[in-house]
C-alpha cells in the first residue's frame, strides 16, 4: 500500500522534472544574443572552426521546438551536453563534484539538527526561562544572518585569529586520502586513514556551521512552538496519568507529535541548504557543485550551468519526496 503510493509520488516527480528542464532550456534561450558568440567572446579558447560544431551541438540551426525536443531527448538519456571550458561531459563533471556538495549539505543538516533539537525541546519544557529567552533570541539572529557573512566571521575567528581550523578546501592533500566514493569523511573511514578523517572533519566543521546555522535557528523555533503546543494537549496528561516518567512524557508523547510540523520545516530547509550551499562553497572554496556553477556562470559555460541547475532541482525534488515519505511514517493521519 505504502509502496504503491511512494511509487505514485515518484512518478509524479517526472512531469515536474520535465517542466524544470523546459524552463531551464527556455532561460538559456532567453539569453540576449547568440549563446555561442557570447561563449566565444568570454572564453576565447575555442578555435574558430569549432564554432560551427558548437552551433550544431546546441542545435541552434534548428527551429526552437526541435531544439527543445533534442535537448530533452539528450537529457533523458543522461546526456547534459559538453562543457567546453572544462573539455568534459557535463554529467561527468557533476558526478565528480556532487559528493562534496552532498557531504557539506549533510554536515550542515546534521549540525542544524544536533543544535536545534535539544534547544527546541528544552526551551519548550522551560518556557519563558532564561535559557528559553536566550535560545530564541539566538535563533532569531540565526534566521536573519546571511550565510556568507557568518562564514566570513567564522573564518576570521577560528582560522585567522585562533588558527584552530583550516580556511578552505576539503582536506589536506598531505593526508594521502585514497578516494573511493568522493565522500571524504566516509572514504577516510573506509580506508582506515585516521589522519585523513581528522583532516576532512576539521575542514567540514566551519562550512557546516555557516550553512547549518540558519537551519538550526529555523528548526529550533518551529520545534519549540510545536512542543509548547503538544505539551498542552490532553494526551500528555493521559501519559502522566498512566505513570509515564516525565522524561518520556516529553521525549516520546510530546516530541513525537511535535515532530510532525518540524519535519515539514526540515523539508523546506533542504531547499535553503542547497541554495546556501552555492554561497558557502564560494566562501570556503569548497570544491562542490556550487563553486562549479559559479565558475561556469563567469566563464559563460552554459551547458554546465544548465546541467548544474537541473541537478540542484532534481536533488531538491527528491529530497522533498524523501521528506514526504518520512512524513507518512511520522504522521499516521497522512497517507501520501
Amino acid at each position, binding site marked *: 500500500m505504502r509502496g504503491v503510493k511512494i511509487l505514485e509520488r515518484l512518478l509524479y516527480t517526472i512531469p515536474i522534472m520535465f517542466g524544470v528542464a523546459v524552463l531551464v532550456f527556455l532561460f538559456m534561450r532567453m539569453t540576449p544574443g547568440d549563446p555561442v558568440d557570447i561563449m566565444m567572446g568570454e572564453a576565447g579558447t575555442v578555435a574558430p572552426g569549432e564554432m560551427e560544431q558548437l552551433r550544431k551541438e546546441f542545435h541552434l540551426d534548428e527551429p526552437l521546438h526541435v531544439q527543445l525536443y533534442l535537448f530533452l531527448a539528450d537529457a533523458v538519456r543522461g546526456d547534459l551536453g559538453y562543457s567546453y571550458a572544462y573539455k568534459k561531459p557535463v554529467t561527468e563533471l557533476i558526478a565528480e563534484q556532487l559528493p562534496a556538495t552532498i557531504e557539506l549539505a549533510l554536515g550542515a543538516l546534521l549540525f542544524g539538527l544536533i543544535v536545534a533539537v535539544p534547544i527546541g525541546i528544552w526551551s519548550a519544557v522551560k518556557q519563558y526561562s532564561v535559557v528559553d529567552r536566550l535560545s530564541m533570541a539566538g535563533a532569531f539572529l540565526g534566521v*536573519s544572518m546571511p550565510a556568507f557573512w557568518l562564514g566570513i566571521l567564522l573564518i*576570521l575567528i577560528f582560522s585567522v585569529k585562533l588558527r584552530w581550523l583550516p580556511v578552505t578546501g576539503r582536506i589536506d592533500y598531505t593526508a594521502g586520502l585514497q578516494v573511493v566514493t568522493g565522500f571524504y569523511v566516509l572514504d577516510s573511514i573506509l580506508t582506515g586513514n585516521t589522519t585523513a578523517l581528522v583532516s576532512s572533519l576539521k575542514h567540514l566543521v566551519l562550512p557546516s556551521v555557516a550553512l547549518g546555522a540558519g537551519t538550526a535557528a529555523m528548526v529550533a523555533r518551529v520545534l519549540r512552538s510545536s512542543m509548547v503546543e503538544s505539551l498542552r494537549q490532553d494526551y500528555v496528561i493521559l501519559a502522566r496519568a498512566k505513570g509515564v516518567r516525565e522524561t518520556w512524557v516529553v521525549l516520546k508523547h510530546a516530541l513525537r507529535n511535535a515532530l510532525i510540523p518540524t519535519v515539514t520545516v526540515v523539508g523546506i530547509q533542504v531547499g535553503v541548504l542547497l541554495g546556501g550551499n552555492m554561497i558557502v562553497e564560494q566562501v570556503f572554496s569548497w570544491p562542490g557543485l556550487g563553486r562549479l556553477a559559479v565558475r561556469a556562470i563567469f566563464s559563460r559555460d552554459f551547458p554546465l550551468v544548465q546541467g548544474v541547475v537541473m541537478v540542484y532541482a532534481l536533488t531538491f525534488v527528491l529530497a522533498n519526496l524523501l521528506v514526504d515519505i518520512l512524513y507518512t511514517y511520522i504522521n499516521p493521519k497522512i497517507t501520501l
Partner: protein
Amino acid sequence: MQTTQTTVPWWYPLALRLRIWATNAAGFLRDLAGHPIALTGGLVVLLYVAMAIFAPQIAPHDPTKGELLRRLEPPVWAGGSMDYWLGTDAQGRDLWSRIVFGSRISLWVGFVSVAISAIVGVLLGCLAGYFRGALDEVLSRFSDLLLAFPYLIFAIAVMAFMGPGMTNLLLALTFKGWVEFYRLARGEMLSEKTKEYVAAATAVGMGHLRIIVSEVLPNIFHSVLVLATLRLGVMIVTEASLSFLGLGIQPPTPAWGSMVSEGRDYLTTSWWVSTLPGLAILILVLAINVFGEGLRDILDPRLKIE
C-alpha cells in the same frame, strides 16, 4: 432590482473599509507600543529608510572614489581617524559612505521586488481562487514547478543566463517571489468565497471583479501585509547573496553583498572591510524580521512560522 444597485458607487465599500482602517491604525499603533521589541524593529527599519533617502546628505565622502594613500585604514576604535570612522577599503574608499549608499540598493531591491511579487501574486491568486477552472490549474501547476527550484538557485540561474543589472535582478527575484503570495491569496480566496458576505454580495448582483476588489481583498489585506514583511528580509538577503557572488549590482555601485565579497581578500589584515557591511545587512534583516513577527502577532495570529 437593477436600479437600486446603481445608487451606491462601486468604490463605496472600499472607501468604507479605508475609514475603518484609519480608525484601526490608532489601535494598531497602540498594539505596537505593547510590543517594545517589534516597535524597536520598526524604528530601526525607518532609520535605514531615512539613511537610504538622505544618503547624499549623510555620507561624508563619495562612495565610489577612494584615496589610495589612505587605503585599508581601520575604524576609529581600532586606531583609525575620524575622517573615516568606519575605516576604508582596499581602494581607500570610505566604508561608512559605502554602507550608507549600499542601503539604497538593498532597500530598493527589497521593497520593489516584494511589491511586484505581492501585486502579481495576490492578483493571480485571487483570480485563480475565485474563478478556479483552467486558469487556476495552469497557474497552480506553474507555481508547483517554480517551487521545484530552491530560491537562491533559481535567482542565480536567472542572473547567470540574463546577466547582471538592476532590471534583471528584480526580474530574478520576482519571477519566483510571486508564488508565496499567489498561494496565500488563492487559499484565502477559496475560504473567503464560502463565507456569507460573498454570497450576499453575489445575491445583490455585484459583479465578480467588484466582489474581489471591494469585498474579498480588504479581508486578506492583513495576511498579505504580514507575508510581505517577512518576505522583505528574505529578498534582501537574496540580493546580498547574489551581489556577494558577483551576480547582482555591478561595481563600483556599492552593494553590501559585493562589499563583503571584496573584503574577503583582506580578511587577515583588515577585518572591517568585509564584516561591517555584513553587520549592516544583519541589523536590517533582524529589524525587519522582528517587526514582521510583531506585525503577525498583532494582525494575523493564524499565520505561523512557515
